[in-house]
């Protein structure tokens, strides 16, 4: 079992963006290494853990995959607040998903911490019918102080890189800024909770 001693950092990463842009597929590609065709709409919030290694330190990413559809989103807002990183996703072959980005940013500003790491992701670069040129996405990201990356969950392009980049950056930020919450064993372990757990299979299963 993963005890707190197994990892140095734990970061909460939340994915947002319009319905159908591929948030769940990005997460599935990263956590399970697969691309589920015909993925249905996410309802509510799905959450999972993935442990990665950065500079020989184990980092746990707690990934929250939210619903894109308005009618399934009513309980998602409080999940922004304690996020360390927010991934805002649009579909490069679908202009309306890009046009909604300012709305998403307003929501992020309203609910998320001002220190949150924000990443803009243009997904589905495997598609031939691109509507949003790369520079338009880059430009938008630069104007809003966000990292930018284009990905393909289907072809596994830049997906690993996206999450690893987040893990690395958050570790650096954390090292510099003591204000951010640290999930180290000595500080957040609640006494007695993990003492009797000895199975060590879960981390290997999750990675």
């Amino acid at each position, binding site marked *: 079992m993963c005890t707190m001693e197994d990892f140095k950092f734990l970061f*909460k990463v939340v994915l947002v963006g319009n319905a159908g842009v591929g948030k769940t597929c990005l997460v599935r590609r990263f956590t399970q290494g697969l691309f589920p065709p015909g993925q249905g709409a996410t309802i509510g919030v799905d959450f*999972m853990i993935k442990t990665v290694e950065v500079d020989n330190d184990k980092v746990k990413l707690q990934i929250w995959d939210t619903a894109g559809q308005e009618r399934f989103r009513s309980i998602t807002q409080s999940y922004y607040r304690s996020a360390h990183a927010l991934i805002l996703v649009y579909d490069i072959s679908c202009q309306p998903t890009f046009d909604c980005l300012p709305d998403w940013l307003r929501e992020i500003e309203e609910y998320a911490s001002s220190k949150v790491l924000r990443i803009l992701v243009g997904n589905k670069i495997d598609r031939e019918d691109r509507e949003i040129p790369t520079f338009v996405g880059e430009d938008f990201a630069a104007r809003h102080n966000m990292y930018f990356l284009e990905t393909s969950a289907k072809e596994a392009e830049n997906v690993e890189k996206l999450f690893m980049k987040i893990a690395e950056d958050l570790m650096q930020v954390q090292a510099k800024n003591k204000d951010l919450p640290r999930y180290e064993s000595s500080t957040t372990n609640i006494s007695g909770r993990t003492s009797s*757990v000895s199975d060590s*299979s879960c981390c290997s299963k999750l990675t």
Partner: protein
Amino acid sequence: MLVNFKRVTTLVSFIRRCSTLSKSLPELTKDRYPNIKRGDYAELNQNHLDYFHGLLGQNRVLSDPSDCEMYNIDFIKGVRGYSQCVLKPQTTEEVSKILSFCNQHRLAVCPQGGNTGLVGGSVPVFDEIVLSTSLMNNIISIDNISGVVVCEAGCILESLDDVLREKGLMMPLDLGAKGSCNIGGNVSTNAGGLRLLRYGNLHGSVLGIEAVKANGDVIDCLSTLKKDNTGYHLKHLFIGSEGTLGIVTKVAVHGPSKPKSLNLALLGLHSFENILQTYERAKNDLSEILSSCEMMDERSLDVVTSHLKLKSPIGDFPFYMVVETSGSNEKHDEEKLNAFLEGVMSEGIVADGTVTNEPGKMRAIWDLRERITEGLLHDGYLFKYDISLPIKEFYSLVPKMKERLGSDASRVSGYGHIGDGNIHLNISVPEFSPDILKKVEPYVYELTSTYKGSISAEHGVGFRKPPYIHYSKSENAISLMKDLKKMMDPNGILNPYKVLPS
């Protein structure tokens, strides 16, 4: 086990399809259990029927064998009596006259509500007269301020709940059979269900009872007060005594306020230890909004995913939990749930999950848990146990039984109400075999007793378990129960062969 009534029809038709007999009737109880002898009761004759006709009219006395059939067979078709008379009183006075007459003439009586019991308590063993409460279904009063509903015993649980919900209230119990079970039966069996964790058991939420004793005396304890310490608390004698001490005719139940905000999470976990940790966290973090906390192992989930083709929205894990919150403020509940989920994820005790307040997805998650009973029937023959254990030992029986049975069992699975310490242990075998039965019983009861558990958590004792209650109750306790029975029903006419060992 509380079976969803909406699926009863599917389930019954399934059993019918599987039956190789031209008629799907189970063997008569008297033939399957030849060791049980009919008590020294009178046999029904025309004079008796004439009296009942005079009292109830022609339509409320069933004596045609085909009319009586459904009242003679239990829900899981495990037992079958051969009663030739079903009575359907509409008032307490009629119940009183029936019992007084039966007591004088030594006619045995089997009280019956919705007939959804799983331990053979609600059908006759031999030819007992069936007293059905189904026509006593009036709601007498609902107090919007106190939330107290007073009603007759034959009200269907779901109908009561529907009426209360229109008034911003709800019934304090919810169980799979709600579409057909009667409140009188719920009270008589002290039914549990999915939300006992939150609203407590019926000893708390039933405020008053009117019952009729074997000699016809009406015991009016129909108080609607939350506090009433005058004399002995007689109502408790009728809660959970399965109609052996009296027939419940009216109840007063405290209905809590209907929640305005509901959330449901399905969690994947790596060990039973993690379930305990998560339950502890849920209690502390969600406290008053926690309304249900259920667990199932991977073999239980497999029942619904492989037999019923339901889809699990999360990955594969050895254990799963369903955690429900209900409260009065969406934002507040969301905050708490969020903090709870972040906590259990951060500590690594929950590996994966999904949370929602969308009704369709909540239904889909509940189905994974509620339809296990139905799915298990596809396995073949089932040895079913409904056991309470100290929470640390909640899951102990499953690996022990699995090891003991080895390849004899096609599946040994456990699921249930973790918050109540109540597990449903199911042992699936391709077909019934007395040799396997000998391996399972009484070992499973001995083991339960070793852990200081109860061999019947919420299903009752009924016809199936009287020989085993000594595993959970002391000799003196059983002896006092027998004394009470003798005092309240000296002729033993009420629901004989049930609850107490002979």
